[in-house]
């Protein structure tokens, strides 16, 4: 079906990142490196209260600090504060130190309010209300297919489990921020963003400027993972400070800021019941779940793309399904879309209970999955993976390794749409043979520049290094935001279309019948002085959606210290036509590492007594380091006939589930909450003295909605700013 070349030279092969040398030498200028003439440093003043009513904010002393050129409040007049770290004001000055000094002189008159940061506490009767006009706990969404209770009665085996997942932070290595210069008639923004047009449109709206007068530029940026769309509060403040001072203003968040107010993956709590017949055919599924997307959760809002809902029973076909899901508001920073929103939570609960069922049935977990998975490609991936991984040799009775260091294996699957459309692109073929492709997409680090060059090179029969790719500028033909694994499937067809048309035009004008490869330059020379400029756009048939993937994990667990070492991850993933194998594999590696952090290390920790974030840094918010990363083996199913499908999200999803299943297989006991840290392992193994708990305790009271007498927030007087 596909129009893609059937015998490609570059598609599906390894092409190194075009910008690699610029990045490793420091020549690449990221958005945070931009220093336009006269720029000012900007910083944000944040709430030190987790909940408060602000009466007034006085910026006068801050304005008087030497070097300070401007100061604004986020909102004038009385306002509520919903979480620790909420943005209240910002200053701009000639140095970072001037801004730091000014922030300490901002005076706030406020009345602290009761608060709650723990979702389980927040849903209890009598808990402090995050919003005065709506309950913390939203109305549950209930879905039912089939006859669940009757089906459970027919099941040969029924397993129950309670699972929870933590709040994970995006922590892009380049923090959120922009450098923005607002002039009388127009505006330029150098943005660290996944969507340059969303930044342009947001600023145009805020500044009441025509969209054509606002330009957003993102030459290079250091990651977003779903959290960087639109100008954000920080962009809005930079624009206002620039308008006030007449100078470019740069606000790049600090690592501390980054931990508070620019999104996260919401928590989840899941009580699951799953039943099957004795052959392992799934018959019934029941879920009672909730989660918290911080203050943008609960009764007031649905939470949007970063909300607390998650798919269940995830990738499996179960004839009788009942799900009940709710969101809980807490006094915490709001969630945002985070690489595969909802899926890692849904996967962890479902894949954990699947393994429990497999153990009860005495069935191989891979067989159980293949039996109940409706997606043919994924069934094939399990078959490929189990061979490659040596599953049959490695899978053994849970907890059966002799000695204190126990090894185990686990498996899990994932799904994602990964389609994309709507991109436009332009190719210029110059009489000297120079080719330039322009597209208003942006590279959030995934390698789209190189993908564009590969597609263009394939069509012209040139090498990718001969293609000048220009992206990251709203003056170029429009493309969508880079989220939801849509960039490559959206952009590649537009490049294909523009270049194919360009080639045809070149052949027509030059009279060279096949102007590709060695004929390209001679054909161009016949153009005279007029270059060929051709527009192209995304169209049907070159991309599709619906990716499947499976991952296998092997771990070693020290049962005396609780330390988990992941020794191997095998990924078998479909993404349709592989455009550039090297950057696609790089995407897989990155996804697995995020999943590994989710499995073992990462967790935003908030203090229930004071409402603050306790680990707003890389010291105690633990990201996987180089020595934590195992051998990651990637098998991509190259399926050109399906067209291009995005790969960003699906590879994040099953890692934590596979690792959790491997840990359970190793030690013979399941850890029901992420991250799987030594304290939880030791507690699950009953090695911790009585009375001490690590958070792997039963969640049942939360689901029972028990009454609690002391649901009032603790004393917060001690830490109020002087």
């Amino acid at each position, binding site marked *: 079906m596909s129009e893609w070349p059937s015998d490609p030279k570059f598609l599906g092969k390894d092409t190194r990142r075009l910008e690699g040398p610029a990045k490793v030498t420091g020549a690449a200028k990221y958005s945070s490196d931009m220093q336009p003439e006269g720029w000012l440093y900007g910083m944000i003043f944040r709430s030190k209260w987790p909940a408060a009513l602000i009466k007034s904010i006085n910026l006068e002393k801050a304005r008087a600090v030497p070097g300070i050129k401007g100061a604004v409040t986020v909102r004038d007049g009385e306002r509520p504060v919903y979480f620790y770290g909420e943005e209240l004001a910002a200053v701009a000055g000639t140095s970072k130190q001037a801004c730091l000094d000014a922030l300490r002189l901002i005076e706030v008159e406020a009345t602290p309010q009761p608060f709650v940061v723990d979702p389980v506490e927040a849903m209890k009767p009598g808990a402090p209300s995050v919003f005065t006009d709506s309950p913390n706990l939203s109305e549950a969404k209930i879905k039912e297919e089939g006859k669940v209770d009757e089906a459970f009665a027919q099941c040969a085996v029924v397993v129950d489990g309670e699972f929870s997942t933590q709040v994970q932070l995006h922590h892009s290595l380049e923090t959120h921020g922009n450098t923005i210069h607002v002039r009388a008639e127009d505006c330029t923004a150098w943005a660290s963003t996944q969507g340059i047009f969303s930044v342009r449109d947001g600023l145009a709206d805020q500044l009441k400027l025509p969209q054509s007068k606002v330009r957003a530029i993102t030459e290079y940026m250091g990651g977003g993972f779903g959290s960087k769309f639109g100008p954000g509060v920080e962009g809005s403040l930079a624009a206002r400070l620039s308008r006030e001072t007449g100078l470019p203003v740069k606000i790049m968040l600090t690592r501390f800021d980054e931990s508070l107010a620019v999104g996260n993956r919401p928590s989840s709590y899941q009580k699951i019941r799953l039943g099957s017949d004795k052959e392992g055919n799934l018959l019934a599924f029941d879920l009672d779940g909730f989660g918290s997307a911080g203050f943008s959760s609960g009764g007031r809002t649905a939470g949007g793309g970063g909300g607390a809902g998650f798919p269940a029973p995830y990738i499996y076909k179960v004839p009788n399904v009942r799900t009940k899901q709710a969101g809980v508001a807490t006094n915490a920073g709001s969630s945002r879309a985070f690489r595969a929103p909802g899926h890692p939570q849904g996967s962890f609960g479902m894949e954990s209970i699947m393994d429990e069922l497999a153990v009860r049935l005495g069935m191989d977990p891979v067989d159980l999955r293949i039996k109940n998975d409706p997606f043919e490609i994924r069934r094939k991936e399990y078959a490929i993976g189990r061979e490659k991984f040596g599953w049959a040799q490695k899978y053994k009775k849970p907890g059966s390794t002799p000695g204190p260091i126990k090894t185990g294996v686990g498996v899990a699957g994932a799904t994602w749409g990964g389609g994309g459309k709507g991109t436009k692109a332009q190719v210029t073929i110059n009489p000297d043979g120079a080719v330039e492709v322009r597209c208003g997409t942006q590279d959030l680090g995934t390698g789209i520049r190189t993908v564009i060059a590969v597609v263009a090179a394939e069509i012209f029969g040139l090498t990718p290094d001969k293609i000048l790719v220009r992206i990251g500028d709203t003056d170029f033909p429009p493309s969508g935001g880079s989220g939801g694994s849509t960039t490559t499937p959206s952009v590649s067809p537009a490049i294909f279309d523009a270049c194919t048309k360009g080639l045809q035009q070149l052949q027509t004008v030059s009279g060279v019948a096949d102007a590709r490869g060695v004929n390209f330059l001679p054909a161009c020379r016949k153009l005279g002085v007029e270059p060929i400029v051709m527009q192209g756009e995304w169209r049907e048939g070159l991309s599709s959606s619906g990716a499947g993937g499976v991952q296998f994990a092997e771990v070693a667990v020290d049962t005396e210290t*609780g330390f988990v*070492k992941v020794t191997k991850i095998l990924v078998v993933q479909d993404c349709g036509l592989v455009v550039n194998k090297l950057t696609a594999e790089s995407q897989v590696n990155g996804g697995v590492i995020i999943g590994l952090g989710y499995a073992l290390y990462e967790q935003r920790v908030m203090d229930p007594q004071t409402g*603050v974030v306790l680990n707003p840094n890389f010291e105690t918010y633990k990201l996987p380091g180089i020595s934590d990363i195992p051998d990651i083996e990637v098998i991509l199913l190259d399926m050109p006939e399906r067209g291009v499908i995005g790969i960003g999200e699906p590879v994040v999803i099953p890692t934590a589930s596979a690792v959790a299943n491997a840990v359970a297989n190793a030690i013979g006991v399941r850890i029901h909450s992420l991250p799987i840290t030594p*304290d939880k392992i030791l507690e699950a193994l009953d090695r911790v003295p009585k009375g*001490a708990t690590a*958070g792997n305790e039963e969640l049942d009271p939360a689901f029972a909605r028990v009454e609690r007498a002391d649901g009032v927030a603790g004393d917060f007087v001690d830490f109020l700013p002087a």
Partner: protein
Amino acid sequence: MKAFEYVNAQTPESAAGLIGTEGRYLAGGIDLLGEMKEYIATPARLVNVKNLPTTREISKTPEGGFRLGANVTIAELAAQADLPAGLIEAAAEVGSPQIRAVATVGGNLAQHSRCWYYRQRDLTCLKRGGSTCYARDGENKYNAIFTGNPCISPVVSNLAVALTVLSAQAVVWRKSKEVRLTMAELYADAWNNPLAQNSLQPGDLILAVEIPAPVAGVRSSYLQVSEKSDFDWALVSCAAAGSVNEGKFRGVKIALGAVAPVPFQMEEANALLEGKPCNEASANAAASLILATATPFSHNGYKVPIARALIRRTLLNLAK
């Protein structure tokens, strides 16, 4: 950070003279600059002590022991192959390669609490002069399981734990002369006093650490367990030193880190091991004695089994 004066000191005497009441000594700066950036420390003056004579050297003492200058970096320590193995192992676990290249012996010993309540810029915990130890009823998974005061922040210096079992002494410039403090003495105040990070008094400056001459047959070992494989604080650390003669422990010392405001050791446990066979049963008996008085808090009971495992493993390493 708050603006400060910067002065260079050439001798211990001049350093002590320059420090005043609101000054801080600056060496590697790993700990101090972090505190200053968070406004936890707001010194009016930094006294650079990196140029004090002989403080960047590792040398032999007249008695055949080692003298480690306070400005020797952790990386230099980790690369010094003739030092006791336990000390090299402890140094190699400090921070990251970048941190080890800058951080110093003196700074590692004198570093302040890493309790996340203490380090939170918007809280004023007990150790910072407030009225409450938030960790006691809060998120205390990284906190102490032994303490003699209301603060439950543990000492996190890897070197302190290894140096304790090596019977090392800190050479401290105090009131115009050198005094020698055992590791127990260097941290004793932190056991009782919630405001104390160690026993150093205002103006005290660590100049060096001295390790007694190695005795034939004596070995040492240091192990830690962290949540990550590398570049992470110890949940629990443990060091042991001593010899194993004809299968029996002789002169063994054992100490734990990250479990108490001081390197935690128990003379009775050392005594218990004397002459006992080097095996799991002896090691477990020592561990039981050491851990019998542990009083874990709501989220850190898991440190007890880790400590038990590390005591056994470090002790058995002495026979290897």
